[in-house]
């Protein structure tokens, strides 16, 4: 139980800090620390994302950043895809799904590194190694 709370808190802090969604941490946390299988972890992660997304949306909407019509259209138009994705996930074995998820995590890591390095260049334009 304490493990689950710790995963949630850590994933939330990282999500708020870096803008990377909670799911990419919820899933491995549930598998590695709580021993869920990959399918259970993905399903549980989806449910856990809901309150985070609701609160995040409420906060952003107060600043006027949410384009409501587009969000609604996106949300509704994504439902068929979401159902297909879940069916596909359940058709795959846990081992394949877990390896695919690991690849996804590496891609997110690469994206973070790239973004961090480009921020560095913006903050410090002279530090390109040319001097």
């Amino acid at each position, binding site marked *: 139980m304490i493990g689950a*709370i710790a995963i*949630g808190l850590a*994933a*939330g*802090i*990282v*999500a*708020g*800090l*870096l803008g*990377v*969604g909670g799911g*990419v941490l*919820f899933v*491995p946390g549930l*598998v*590695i620390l709580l021993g869920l299988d990959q*399918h*259970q972890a993905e*399903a*549980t992660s*989806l*449910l*856990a*994302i*809901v309150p985070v*997304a*609701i*609160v995040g*949306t409420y906060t952003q*909407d107060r600043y006027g*950043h*949410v384009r409501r019509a587009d*969000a*609604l*259209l*996106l*949300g509704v138009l*994504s*439902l*068929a*895809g*979401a*159902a*297909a*994705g*879940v069916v*596909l*996930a*359940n058709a795959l074995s846990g081992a394949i799904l*877990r390896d695919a*998820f*690991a*690849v*996804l*995590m*590496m891609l*997110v*890591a690469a994206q*973070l590194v790239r973004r961090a390095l480009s921020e560095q260049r913006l903050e410090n334009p002279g530090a390109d190694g040319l001097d």
Partner: protein
Amino acid sequence: MYVVADAPGSRSLKLMAIGTLAGLFSGLFGVGGGTVIVPLLILWLGYEERSATATSLAAIIFIAAFGAGVQGLYGNVNVLDAVLIGVPAVGGVVIGTWLQQRLRTRSISLLFAAVLVASAIELIVR
């Protein structure tokens, strides 16, 4: 960078394509789908980053809730664990957003990337 002026129909088509892709991705991996939605809103619809992230979060409410419902039909959802991680995560997001205004996030990004790679390796060798 340029933004093409669209006919309204093509805009809806783009939203539909983004939604379908994000839904598939989210359902398959159990994540929100922001990894797909945010860059596509920026590239295809000319969103700036902040509104892309905000609009993506709102869409994710629908995607994740529906995906969780379908997963529930397979009996995969562990509701207690979802509440135990989801509720503290809300508090975590508030803390993270507060910290973001006060910290330089570059080294944290790099550290987190390292954690992701280590966890990915752990998943593969498991």
